[in-house]
């Protein structure tokens, strides 16, 4: 208790220096937690990718149709019917999930966070929109923090109100049951909020992993020719044997539609993962460099504090303190500085691996920083300490 009081007095006596030190520690630990978070996310993503592709291969189609032929398909009066049949063939005869992110949700809502907007126009603001089918729910094991996910009826219903799942970050703006109307007059009803960091993968298009925190998710409801084209090109087929995909091409040819090229999702995903690894490694490296600078600053600051307090410590030893008591005081001082940063990390990352490892790391750094004074105080006699600090 006495050492806590002394440590607290030490902190108060040099406010400016300690505030600077506190900021350094905050920066260092926040960066450290960010690096950890990225690394854990990378690992988590890798695991998810493996889960997704480990059972059977996934294939996506690329449209290799001649542009002239494509224009002909789109302008044909019965194309909508033929496209619908092809889409139904793909989704009914194979395990196929649709993840169509080619369109946006257009709203006129001014209350939403401006950072969620991906495009603006005269008529409204465009937000990320993902259209999914029922198989998607199973493949991605989509879960909600509030409300419920889509039911089978949601994918079949063709009512006036479309069920809507919202990304985690929308929780501050909407409530369950809210009805949203887009600029086209379509109505959506909020049925649930997705878990934080829910993601989907779209290797065939941009090769990126998207976090759905600021996305609108609705069941796929193709109504027009544009919708069917988009849905077909955003449908992924799970298959053990790629030869079965030939039947899709046969069906397409039979319907006078596209010429496809099917690519292995796994190969594409591996490329994505490699890109992701490189990207994360670069960010991680940069952050570690910054972290090292921060730790060096912290260590030198503590060393400076200890040097400037050597005489005081020696006086305490002269009056009957043990070296352990003085080290205890230094440790309390360091931990009082580290504590606000740890609290902040906890607030941001909650009870997670990142929080636990960051706190353990900060405790380790605190103890390492205390080694220098411990050695100094133990090796030098009280007289030497008094003389050195004169």
């Amino acid at each position, binding site marked *: 208790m*006495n050492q806590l009081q002394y440590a607290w007095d030490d902190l108060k*006596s040099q406010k400016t220096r300690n505030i600077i030190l506190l900021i350094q520690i905050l920066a260092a630990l926040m960066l450290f937690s960010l690096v950890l978070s990225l690394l854990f996310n990378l690992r988590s993503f890798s695991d998810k990718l493996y889960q997704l592709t480990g059972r059977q291969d996934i294939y996506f189609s690329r449209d290799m149709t001649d542009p002239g032929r494509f224009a002909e398909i789109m302008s044909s009066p019965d194309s909508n019917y033929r496209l619908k049949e092809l889409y139904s063939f793909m989704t009914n005869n194979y395990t196929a999930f649709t993840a169509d992110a080619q369109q946006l949700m257009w709203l006129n809502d001014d209350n939403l966070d401006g950072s969620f907007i991906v495009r603006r126009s005269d008529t409204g603001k465009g937000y990320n929109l993902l259209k999914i089918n029922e198989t998607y729910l199973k493949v991605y094991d989509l879960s909600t923090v509030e409300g419920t996910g889509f039911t089978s009826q949601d994918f079949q219903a063709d009512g006036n109100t479309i069920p809507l799942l919202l990304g985690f970050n929308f929780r501050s703006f909407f409530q369950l049951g809210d009805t949203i109307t887009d600029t086209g007059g379509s109505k959506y009803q909020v049925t649930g909020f997705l878990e934080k960091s829910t993601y989907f993968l779209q290797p065939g298009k941009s090769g990126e992993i998207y976090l759905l925190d600021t996305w609108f998710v609705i069941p796929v409801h193709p109504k027009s020719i544009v919708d069917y084209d988009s849905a077909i090109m955003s449908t992924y087929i799970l298959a053990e044997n790629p030869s079965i995909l030939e039947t899709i091409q046969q069906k397409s040819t039979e319907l006078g539609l596209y010429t496809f090229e099917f690519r292995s999702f796994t190969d594409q995903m591996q490329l994505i993962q490699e890109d992701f690894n490189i990207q994360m490694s670069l960010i991680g490296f940069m952050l570690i460099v910054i972290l090292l600078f921060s730790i060096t600053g912290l260590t030198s600051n503590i060393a400076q504090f200890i040097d400037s307090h050597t*005489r*005081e410590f*020696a*006086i*305490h*030893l*002269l*009056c*009957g*303190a*043990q*070296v*352990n*008591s003085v080290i205890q005081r230094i440790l309390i001082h360091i931990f009082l500085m580290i504590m606000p940063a740890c609290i902040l990390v906890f607030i941001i990352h909650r009870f997670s691996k990142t929080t636990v490892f960051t706190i353990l790391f900060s405790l380790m750094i605190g103890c390492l920083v205390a080694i220098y004074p411990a050695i100094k105080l133990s090796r030098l*006699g*009280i*007289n030497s300490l*008094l003389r050195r600090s*004169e």
Partner: protein
Amino acid sequence: MSIIQVEGLVKAFGDGEAEVRALNGLSLSIRKGEMVAIMGASGSGKSTLLNILGCLDNPTEGTYMLKGKNILSYSPREMAALRNRQFGIIVQDFALVDRYNVYRNVLIPLTYSKKPIQSRRKRIDEVLSQLGISDKKHTLALKLSGGQRQRVAIARAIVNNPEIILADEPTGSLDSKTGLEVIDIFREINQLGKTVIIVTHDMTVASACHRIVKIQDGKIA
């Protein structure tokens, strides 16, 4: 009865040919309640002796019996307890924490003595009053005069009611008038039954003691 008895004390610094012996087989006995001046030329080993007596340093060789117990075998924890409860140590430059006020400086030994907070306050008020510096209780050590600083150092040394007071050149940096006042304080402390050991160059201080021990080349002259 001897409260302190040292035999064949050697304190060597450096190794081999570079070895210097600050104490070279010194033996000394001090009785309880005695007021002893230790004198000697600079480098004779008197401060080194005081440091060993006050458990601030260990001898290279020899024995040190405190109240009949060989304390050289004590652990660092036991040594710290001795410094806290058995000895009141006053060093040459007073060794005050400048950023603390008088109260907090005097409080330091009590912090490590496990005494209740209420009795600590009472005891500090007592010693500050005894030394005539009650009015300086909340003054920063930095702002005190030399004589006042020395009184604070003495207050800190006696606050835990130790049996032995060790002072290294207590009048060295004071004017003669203040020096005499300090000598009177040591006399009063001694009259309360405390053993006082003073290292000094000053004959006026030494003549106020019961006995003068002269050291030369690390031995009793």
